């Protein structure tokens, strides 16, 4: 079996199923009455937490691929990103149903009124175009450059997710700050990848330019 076939036929299905583990465990605990006395809140919190985790995991794909030089890692990015959207949608549904019972006259004012909801909502909405443009055909149609540019929206969603979390905790900010630190490292890595060659070429230019001018001045 070639590596591509192994990744496609075995590794990917395995990862696909593993990603269903959090929701399966949650459902199991729910139906066996193993959640807390307030199971609906547990569902909101668990789906929210896994949304953020999947965003973080998705952001890990590119650095891992580059650092390990294992190209097939990239094959998991779409899968993981779509799972982030999946858990995010479930999370939003728990808010709409368990929290607000689809009472739109409550929901619509709530979204702009409460900053943590506003930010969470914006973060989720920003994932919609990414999910919609995730098929091979659309990716090809858009072209790599445009597609990549659009999909950088995930950086905004990641930051938004952390702010959402930070603004909803009552006193203990340690968990949102931990996610914040991880997101900062992952985005910092991209900034570094983007800036490093520019800085290097700037240095090169300086190095190669200045001796020339010196020589030039000396020449005549």
């Amino acid at each position, binding site marked *: 079996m070639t590596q591509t076939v192994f990744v496609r036929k075995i590794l990917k299905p395995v990862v696909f199923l593993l990603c269903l583990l959090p929701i399966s465990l949650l459902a199991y605990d*729910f*139906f*066996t*009455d193993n959640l*807390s*006395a*307030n*199971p*609906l*809140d547990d569902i909101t919190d668990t789906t929210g937490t896994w949304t953020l985790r999947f965003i973080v995991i998705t952001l890990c794909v590119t650095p891992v691929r580059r650092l390990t030089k294992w190209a097939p890692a990239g094959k998991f990015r779409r899968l993981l990103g779509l799972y982030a959207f999946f858990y995010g949608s479930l999370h939003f549904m728990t808010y709409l149903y368990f929290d607000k*019972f689809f009472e739109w006259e*409550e929901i619509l004012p*709530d979204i702009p009124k*409460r*900053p*943590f909801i506003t930010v969470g909502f914006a973060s989720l909405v920003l994932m919609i175009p990414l999910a919609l443009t995730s098929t091979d055909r659309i990716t090809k149609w858009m072209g790599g450059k445009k597609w990549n540019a659009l999909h950088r929206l995930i950086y905004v969603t990641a930051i938004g997710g952390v702010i959402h979390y930070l*603004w*909803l905790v*009552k*006193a*203990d*900010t*340690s968990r949102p700050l931990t996610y914040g630190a991880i997101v900062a490292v992952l985005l910092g890595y991209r900034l570094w990848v983007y800036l490093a060659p520019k800085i290097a070429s700037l240095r090169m230019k300086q190095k190669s330019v200045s001796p020339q001018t010196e020589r030039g001045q000396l020449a005549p």
Partner: protein
Amino acid sequence: MLIKRADDLKPSEITPESLYYNRREWIRMASAALGGMAFGSLVWQDTISAPCQEYKPKAKGPYDTDEKLNSYKDITTYNNYYEFGTDKSDPAENSGPFKPKPWTVAVEGHVKKPATYNLEDLIKPFKLEDRIYRMRCVEAWSMVIPWLGFPLGDLIKRLEPTSKAKYVAFETVFRPEQMVGQRRPYLRWPYVEGLRMDEAMSPLTLMATGLYGKELPNQNGAPLRLVVPWKYGYKGIKSIVKIKFVDNEPPTTWNIAAPDEYGFYSNVNPEVDHPRWSQKTERRIGEFRKRPTLMFNGYAEHVAGMYAGMDMKKNY
């Protein structure tokens, strides 16, 4: 023995299980709705045979609610007690090493005889009574809890505060070696709370030493806690070691942490939202649908008079 125990209860005092909330009921309904009929009823059969807390208060008092009690399990596993951690499950999990005995309470400030009392001596003069109260958490959930305790007012009368005493300030014990949450400064420790004198003297205000006819478990604030049923739960300071009579409004922990979110009064009020969530409705633990939150948590007839003429939006 100062504190009644569950095993003192006679069989005649035992209520049938059907009077207790059973969230399994709607979990079963949810399983059925999902098409998991067989699975759901299997689970149901399994859990319904689990022993239910058997308890009945001696006699119904004027302030008791008729509503269904939350189960002992719910009351003792779903707690906000940040001294033991910030997750609801933390207090039950982390409060094992906490030692509520022996216990002393310091009485200070504008009072005839400031002194430090052994807990037993402090509560000996009072007859413990059952009080079935609604408890409304600021996070928009609520429970019905059968407390065991005595009115704070009776204690205050015995302690004889002077005319300078306008407020009562309370303090929780500080024991980071037994209370893991106190090792981290997400709140300023020790926890402090306070009441205006008339609030403290209200016949509804309870010093609780137990619930469900038993001693308070550590996670519920053993061995002595405050219960103020018309205020948000965090006013009910736990594991009290100091009672101080003061002339000015005392500082309170959540108000120090976030003054725009938690005021000194903290009366349950559906009209005044917490900045991050609505207070109009609440989820009674065990129920699926939310219910409307009542002004003063349904105790308006007993307490509203104390706030006549006060702007509750300003004095939240």
